[in-house]
């Protein structure tokens, strides 16, 4: 590639590839990405900030946003802790069935989220394979716990993938050096391995959170979608839109979009900090 670029430098005269190619990219991006995003903000503020604020502070809207943040937070917490454990075990030990476990853990990435939600229902639902043995009062489905469960199911491979790749490429001699110096496994993990994982943990957490807070397909099946009780932000947007309350939907959509922007910016612009450079 670099040779192609340096070769082009030697071409004299007008090179149409750059303006033409760039124009095409921008032209495609406009309707695909930029305009839809812009329209949320334009529409959201078109009838004044006051009505935007009113729509946003409606009790159900606030609840939906809170529920999304809280469930995503727990899913993220779980993913980081168990992602670390799984990646550590699977990268530091070799045993029969290791690859099978890695494939199984990563499988949900390839499963449509609606299928994931449906599968959870079939297992945990009132008449599900496990759910039928659980008493009426302790049913998992259609509660916030179901939302966390669905979030974990869908997002675990993301966190695991990020952590695993760092574990596998990590210089093993650091851990070996720590061992020869006299550290226990736990001391080595705490003082040597974990600091090297800081970037991966932050990245994995942010990816999980971003994915979980916008999760729709699986959540709508397992949550029950009860406003003020099990309705997450994306479900709220969908419900309000169906009821024709476009402004209410839009206010929450803006907040979700801002969340993603923030997370994306951290991942993109704070990369050096995340990687500890």
């Amino acid at each position, binding site marked *: 590639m670099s040779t192609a670029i340096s070769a082009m430098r030697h071409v004299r005269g007008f090179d149409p590839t750059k303006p033409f190619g760039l124009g095409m990219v921008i032209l495609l991006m406009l309707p695909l990405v930029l305009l839809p995003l812009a329209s949320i903000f334009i529409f959201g503020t078109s009838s004044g900030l006051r009505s935007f604020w009113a729509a946003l502070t409606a009790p159900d809207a606030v609840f939906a946003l809170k529920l999304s943040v809280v469930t995503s937070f727990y899913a993220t917490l779980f993913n980081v802790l168990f992602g670390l454990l799984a990646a550590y075990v699977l990268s530091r030990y070799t045993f029969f069935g290791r690859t099978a476990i890695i494939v199984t853990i990563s499988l949900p990435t390839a499963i449509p989220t609606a299928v994931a939600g449906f599968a959870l229902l079939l297992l945990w639902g009132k008449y599900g394979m496990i759910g039928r043995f659980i008493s009426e009062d302790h049913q998992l489905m259609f509660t916030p716990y179901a939302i966390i469960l669905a979030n974990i199911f869908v997002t675990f491979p993301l966190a695991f993938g990020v952590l695993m790749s760092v574990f596998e490429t990590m210089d093993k001699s*650091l851990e*070996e050096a720590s061992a*020869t*110096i*006299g550290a226990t496994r736990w001391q080595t993990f705490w003082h040597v391995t974990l*600091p090297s994982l800081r970037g991966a943990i932050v990245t994995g957490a942010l990816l999980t959170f971003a994915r979980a807070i916008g999760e729709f397909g699986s959540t709508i099946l397992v949550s029950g979608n009860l406003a003020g009780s099990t309705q997450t932000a994306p479900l709220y947007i969908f419900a309000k839109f169906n009821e024709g309350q476009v402004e209410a939907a839009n206010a929450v959509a803006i907040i979700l979009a801002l969340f993603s922007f923030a997370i994306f910016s951290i991942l993109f612009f704070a990369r050096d900090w995340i990687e500890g450079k």
Partner: protein
Amino acid sequence: MLAERLEDEPDTARDAPAPAASVRSLSKSFKGVRVLEDVSFDVAEGEALVLLGASGSGKTTILRVIAGLERPDTGNVVLHGRDVTELPARERGVGVIFQSYALFPRMTVEQNVGYGLRIRGRKRRERREKVESLLELVHLLDQRKKLPSQLSGGQQQRVAIARTLAYEPQMLLFDEPFGALDAQIRVRLRREIRALLRDINVPALFITHDQEEALELGDRIAVLHQGHLEQIGTPQEVYNRPETEYVATFLGAANLLLGVVARDNRVELGTVAVEAGAEAARFHVGQPVKLVFRPEDVRVSRPGGELPADCNPLANGVVEEKHFVGAYERLNIRLDLVARAPRPGEPPLYEISETPERRLGVPVIITRTKSEASAKPLRVGERVTLCLTTFRVLPNFPLASERGGRVLDTQK
């Protein structure tokens, strides 16, 4: 009576200095491939032993077994009289200086050096004092607040050494300590490390594939070839009295002439015979051998010219090429050794190189010091006569391992 004997024995054992470390018949395979085969050696207290071998010969594997990072299939590792074969790495108290140094990237120089004390729960003050004295020892006191990535390769190496010295290791293991450094710094650093080791008096094992490094660093050198120990001895022994052809050629340059042991301790090389004395006495008459000598152990003069008295006449030859190589002069000389037809049962005695010009004879390489070269200048094409100041007669198989199972023995 018995009691007396029992009492006596420990005394005699105490007299012989116990080795600081010893490795007993280590064997190790990776996925069915033999990497180490019956490797045994000792490292004495305060000694520096160099493991020298080509890439893939198993050097790092030996080091990892001693450090406890790899488990041997068979064999033992004994450190200061204690069998540590089953101990995990962290309980062995061995200091490893990894090839990449393996400094902890997010800790400062100070924190790296203090790590061993920190995980041992030593008091902050004690830690600070120790770290300070170690950083002073390796001349890095002014770099204490830096991160490893902000140091040069040589400085990183010194941090790695200080980090291991902090917990007073029983032994230091260096895996290719100079591999990542450029040639000039290498020479300086290995002298520094050598001096440092003399000061602290900790036994050390160095790994290298650089023969010059081995000769300079080691009190003794162990030559490893494909998982076998070929020879172990002082640099002088290994260089001047190689026991196998592999050792002779791996450490420095060597000329090898195929011959047969003849009567009266002579070695017959084609049409000439060399008086080999004790060297030949180790073999049977008729045994195929190789005469091995270093390029610098040859003296030349014009035919009829005088040669040193204690120099063993070899043969005459023609100077074919002459190169000036800085500190010395290198001559390619073709000896007039014409192969005779092998006697029945003998291997062919020479690969007679018949070049298009039909030149016969055997090429050898010799080197002469500057002063010698200018005192007795030689031209290309000139006829010379050669003698050897030192040489070895070795069995005609290159490796020690091939000796086993052969009928021919070198001991006679």
